[in-house]
């Protein structure tokens, strides 16, 4: 459906996208994962047509979008701050796109109410948007985007302004909703949990290019390079290999390793160990930590097993 082909964009001599290519299939949810300030949001604006592309083409369903203004693309972009219109109430915000698409007022209101009901905001019609909580504003923004039945849904860090608890429940809910409608979606985030929870495929963006693009499980099984491996959460990454968390564990029978530091965490402890001049980071759950407690102290030696078969070597 969406094909981004060798697109380039600069801001003040910094490449936000450089020969960047990406495809999103029909009904697919794709996550664009990258560190803050790497140009993820700009890429969304390029796709939405809000910023001009310097080079390359963006196509949707085979049509070149270069000369299509944003309002004619039938994409919906959901902003990080939701961008609800302060002068309109909840219902009129949701109706906005329908009115622009020449839907008769009564029909538009009916559709808007129906969508509001599906996101759990029935009866919120006359509320002022300034009086909504974060989660409610989020749902209004989603309803406003979905009610126009966009061909592609673009989501810019949609959960970053919500607290952790709400975020988790909304992520699952959003995924189900978008899934149920069969809309293609492109989600931008810097949070790998969010990307892995929501998306069918995850594209890792770094220094203006896609480093790797695959399903979450494939990414975890075979990160392509050290940067990808450490960004998606590998603790033990070197220039030419990475160790999954399951590939190393403490065992009295293992070869001796020296405990460099020991950091208590909310859900266990983190150990920095050295063995044969190589440093390793190891997370222990609270249960494991309790089992090993007597032997764990900075400066002490413990047995460490490394499963060589699980070691991932970069090409």
């Amino acid at each position, binding site marked *: 459906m969406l094909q981004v082909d060798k697109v380039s964009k600069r801001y003040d001599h910094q490449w936000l996208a450089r020969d960047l290519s990406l495809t999103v299939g029909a009904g697919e949810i794709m996550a664009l994962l990258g560190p803050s300030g790497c140009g993820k949001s700009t890429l969304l*604006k390029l796709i*939405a*047509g*809000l910023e001009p592309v310097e080079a390359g083409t963006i196509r949707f369903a085979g049509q070149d979008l270069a000369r299509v*203004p*944003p*309002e*004619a*693309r*039938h*994409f*919906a*972009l959901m*902003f*990080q*701050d939701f*961008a609800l*219109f*302060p*002068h*309109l109430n909840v219902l009129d915000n949701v109706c*906005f*796109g329908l*009115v*622009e*698409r020449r839907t008769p007022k009564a029909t538009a209101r009916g559709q808007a109410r129906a969508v509001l009901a599906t996101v759990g905001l029935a009866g919120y019609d006359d509320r002022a948007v*300034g*009086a909504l909580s974060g989660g409610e504003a989020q749902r209004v923004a989603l309803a*406003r*985007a979905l009610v*126009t039945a966009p061909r592609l849904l*673009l989501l810019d860090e949609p959960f970053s302004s919500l607290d952790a608890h709400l975020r988790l429940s909304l992520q699952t809910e959003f995924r189900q909703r978008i899934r149920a409608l069969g809309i293609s979606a492109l989600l931008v985030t810097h949070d790998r949990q969010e990307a892995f929870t929501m998306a069918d495929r995850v594209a890792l963006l770094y220094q203006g290019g896609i480093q790797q693009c695959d399903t979450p499980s494939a990414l975890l099984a075979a990160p392509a390079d050290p940067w990808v491996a450490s960004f998606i959460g590998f603790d033990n990454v070197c220039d030419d290999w990475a160790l999954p968390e399951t590939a190393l564990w403490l065992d009295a029978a293992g070869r001796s390793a020296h405990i460099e530091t020991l950091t208590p965490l909310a859900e266990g402890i983190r150990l920095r160990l050295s063995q044969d001049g190589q440093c390793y980071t190891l997370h222990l759950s609270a249960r494991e930590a309790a089992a090993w407690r007597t032997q764990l102290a900075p400066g002490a030696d413990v047995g460490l097993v490394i499963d060589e078969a699980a070691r991932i070597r970069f090409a």
Partner: protein
Amino acid sequence: MRSTRWLALLPLALLTALVAVPLSRLSTDGASALSLAFLSDPYYRWRLAWSLAQALATCGLALLFGLPIAWTLARFDFPGRRWLLRLLMLPFVMPTLVAAMGVLALFGPQGLTGIHGQDTPWLLLYGNLFYNLPLLVRSAQEGFARIPANRLMAARSLGATPWRVFWRVELPGAMPWICSALCLIFLYCFSAFGLALILGGQRYATVEVEIYTLVAYELNLSDASALALSVLAVASLVAFGYAWLERGLARPMRGQVAQRCVPSGWRQCALLALAVGLLVLLALAPLAAIAWRALWAGPAWRALADPEVWAALANTARFTALALGGACLFGLAHAFAARRSVLLGTLAFLPYAVSPVCVAFGLLLVYPRLSASLTLLIGAYTLLAYPFVARGMSATLDAVPAHLPQAARTLGASTWRVVWRVLLPIAAPALRRGMAFAAATALGEFAVTLFLSRPEWMTLTTLIYQRLGRPGALNQDSALVLSCLLMLLAMVAFVLIEWQREGDDDVAGR
């Protein structure tokens, strides 16, 4: 929104034709006339020195009285506080003639106070304060009110007494607001015409009045040009400083603002009483004096039946309506063109910075054929009125997050639909307020009208001035009655401006 830059052509054309060309003409004429002989003339030296001195003195007095008032209004909560803040807007919309008449009604030859202040510098200073004290109070009050509560509490916990907190935290925090208000005050006072013409008398009139006298009565254009040039030089310097400061004010302060508290203890109550008393005395007393004197001016009310008055009223209404249309057109064009452009934003200050007298004089020099044409007069009115629309609108438009129009675009709205459905509704309160200010400006316009008008285009302001110049108590009284009428008209603009403020505050509070 790069596509809207072409709209700038409209206001730029106006500014070029009515400011740049006349002023450059003035400068060339003035520069050739500007010789050492001119500056060594003690009469002109005194005029320039007094103009500077009275502007600086007004700044000093406004600071002295205004800071405690502003601080009190920012920190204390008391019944009527909101109303007091609203009433502070009143002098802004009052025509200079009304202010001058108010001062005379208090301290004039038959003044209510019995203190005869004519031919002293105090009348002019009092008139200046009437206008400019509210400006400082409002601005500084906003500055004080925006300082985050955490900052004040941090200072207290680090060992500062409330007095030291004021000096070391609050005053520096509010400084940009105070400085920008001082710049405006200086500009207004330095180029004051109407007030100085009526209150200054022979000795304490300003350069502006001198220029008018030289042009209108002595036909000494070369000295007038030289004087105008020196006024422009000083004013533009200060105006650039103001525009620069104003840009910095857009930065939002983070953090919860301090809660206002109910004054407790005799000290705080005394401070509050002093502040409110000063404010009423300086900013509201002249208006009350006009109303009071007009009430007892029995036979003078018959002047309202005079066809001359009706003609003047009709002219005032006509000019105001035309100027309002022009102000809307040019103001909107300027605001949409100037979005996030510092240069264009600054240009909107240009009509504030140039004195109406200089502009009118320059227009006479450049377009002698148009000297009594309606086009030129309405053009000049529009020039003076449109920055109110442009500035208010462009501040609001700049504050609209870029995401809102972008969201509207992706929801299917074209550029013009975005303007119509998102930007204009959001900026509607600012537009209404800007228009009310523009109307008040046109209503009270005096200087330009005096220069460019024909006798049959008498407006309410010029009529008042004319009556004031005629001998006899009845003429004096009818000038007073007409001032009262003008004051009531300005009140309408005031109500239009303040009526909607409540809603705005709610939006801002979120």
